[in-house]
């Protein structure tokens, strides 16, 4: 908006609306005053590693970043376009392996991270088109199964094609990004989580900006039209196959992008890390829990699930065991509740997925449009189903 610059000079400083006049990228469409908390959050995220001296915290945050990126990408497919993709891990694997093969000692090819980041993203998007083009004409739930099948095929191919991918052992010694030396830092990413943190923060900021604009564009509105009524959308002149294909390919490219980052940060790529249980379901849970179609919700969902997985499920058993042994009740100690909690990963995910869809289908932070759609569908008919007819 043009007025922003002049408004900055003329308005009284200090009020919330004054500060809100800064157009924080990515949230431009949200009300101005509401942007203020996000501005603070952004600043906090930039400062946080400088204040917090514990580098393991930065590392955790940098890892959480690629999950957020995955969730944002899947949200385009599931949340905006309403296509259930159960093989999201496949594109993540393709991005990781594309990078790992071309930037490691595997074939002694060492192409720069900055070249391969867009390249492997493109490869993942191409696979998205390759899978989507023939199958997106099918009914929605068939797509779920096709993607599930694809998600099973890809890691198996990587596991079996040992000469190229290193088989079960994967590829160890993946290259890490380099930058020209600045400010006394030699530019090597190495195993230092700090540069990765800022890299993923920058990527996330850019992605949020892009997706937000995309959602409000002609394409984004077409996605939502298809999600709500595909036949009606087609009748208004939307090319449903191309539009769905774009959503699918964009989602895949985010997954490939995240895969490249993941491979370079982790230093290793193994086929086991791309299974249905390890990635596809986890990301789906993040999107559903947060609120399909709502970016803030999805980011929150990703953070919550990541926290549950990497912290709560690991720490909680110790606390429980500590508590039961402190109480010194023989019966409780023998029961070993802590062990059960630690192993309840599957159960928790299942309950979140089913429970959210049944009790609060709009997720933690609802998308206004999606909420109406989901609630309207569930209440009025279901009630008559439960009471009547019998």
């Amino acid at each position, binding site marked *: 908006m043009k007025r922003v610059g002049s408004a900055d000079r003329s308005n009284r400083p200090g009020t919330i609306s004054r500060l809100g006049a800064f157009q924080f990228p990515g949230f431009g469409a949200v009300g101005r005053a509401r942007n203020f908390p996000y501005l603070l959050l952004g600043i906090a995220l930039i400062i946080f590693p400088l204040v917090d001296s514990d580098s393991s915290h930065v590392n955790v945050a940098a890892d959480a970043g690629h999950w957020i990126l995955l969730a944002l990408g899947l949200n385009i497919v599931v949340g905006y376009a*309403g296509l259930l993709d159960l093989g999201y891990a496949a594109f993540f694997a393709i991005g990781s392996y594309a990078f790992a093969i071309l930037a490691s000692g595997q074939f002694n090819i060492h192409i720069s991270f900055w070249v391969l980041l867009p390249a492997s993203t493109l490869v993942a998007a191409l696979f998205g088109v390759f899978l989507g083009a023939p199958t997106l004409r099918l009914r929605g739930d068939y797509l779920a199964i*096709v993607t599930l099948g694809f998600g099973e095929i890809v890691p198996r191919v990587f596991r079996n094609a040992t000469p190229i991918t290193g088989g079960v052992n994967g590829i160890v010694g993946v290259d890490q990004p380099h930058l020209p030396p600045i400010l006394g830092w030699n530019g090597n990413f190495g195993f230092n989580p700090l540069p990765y943190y800022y890299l993923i923060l920058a990527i996330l900021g850019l992605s949020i900006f892009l997706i937000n604009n995309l959602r409000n564009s002609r394409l984004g509105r077409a996605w939502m039209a298809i999600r709500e009524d595909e036949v009606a959308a087609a009748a208004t002149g939307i090319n449903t196959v191309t539009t769905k294909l774009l959503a699918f390919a964009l989602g895949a490219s985010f997954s490939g992008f995240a895969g490249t980052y993941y491979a370079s940060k982790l230093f290793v790529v193994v086929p086991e890390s791309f299974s249905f249980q390890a990635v596809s379901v986890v990301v789906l849970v993040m999107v559903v829990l947060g609120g399909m179609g709502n970016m803030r919700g999805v980011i929150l969902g990703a953070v919550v699930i990541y926290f549950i997985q990497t912290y709560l499920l690991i720490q909680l058993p110790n606390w429980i065991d500590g508590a039961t042994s402190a109480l010194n009740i023989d019966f409780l100690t023998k029961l070993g509740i802590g062990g059960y909690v630690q*192993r309840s990963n599957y*159960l928790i995910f299942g309950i979140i997925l089913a429970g959210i869809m049944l009790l609060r289908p709009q997720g933690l932070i609802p998308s206004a449009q999606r909420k109406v759609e989901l609630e309207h569908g569930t209440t009025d008919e279901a009630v008559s189903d439960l009471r009547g007819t019998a």
Partner: protein
Amino acid sequence: MRFFVQQLTFGLTNGAIFALIALGYTMVYGIIELINFAHGDIFTVGGFLGLTVIGLLRLDHAPPALILPGVIVVFAVAMVVNGLLGVAIERVAYRPLRNAPRLAPLITAVGMSFVLEGILFLVKGPNQVSYPNLMPSGSINLGVASIGIGNLLIIAIAIALMVALSQFIGRTRIGRAMRATAQDRDAARLMGININRTIAITFFIGSALAAAGGIIYGFYFQTIAFDVGFRSGLIAFTAAVFGGIGNVVGASIGGFVIGIIIAFVSGYFQGGGQWSDVVVFSILILTLVFRPTGLLGMRVPEK
């Protein structure tokens, strides 16, 4: 030739298990157009229920004369309990969402799959659990090759259940109600059919057949684990799609065909075992792309 017969027997036996699971997928899809994602795990639960009954009856140490009646009790109890589990899942997780957007029940189905898997993981642990084989040993010599009696019995049980099911759907009053509900739910309701009960019965039968499949799986492989349902379920779903989803005969044929394909891919190609799943899932994708109606399916209009 000997090897061929051996692989064929393996394929048919394995295929019988896939076919029994595929029937549940195809029936549920036929009647409410839902891919019951939890069905693979219902199959695993059925297998474990059978194991529990075997343990309660101490059948693995029983005298030979008591094995046959014992096995019948095992099948009966596990099938009924598993059928009730299927009905409960439908009641809790799918019925409230029957008129919601199609994505919603599909996601709850994935959720229920994880709930079942999670419970099995907590109760039975992450490792393989050994399963007694109560099928008779010994084999019939055909000259060129010999076939195990256990294998023949498994195939016979599966085919008997399939025939019983298709007779049930084709000839009984409830079967007619099921077909009517599948064709047009609202019209069926107007004709006085109790839709909720009909759908519940469908889930009961599908889950009961999955339990039979689970017990047979246990007898045949002599081991079971909390997560076998994921892969088996996906393969069985492929079989259902391949045969034509919604079609009971198609699902049975699809199950056997997929079983034979897996057996031959792993038997005749160097290192084929690790590629057999890739082949099966490729068949799934190719079927959906080139012939989404499957071998025997009918065209379902997009609603």
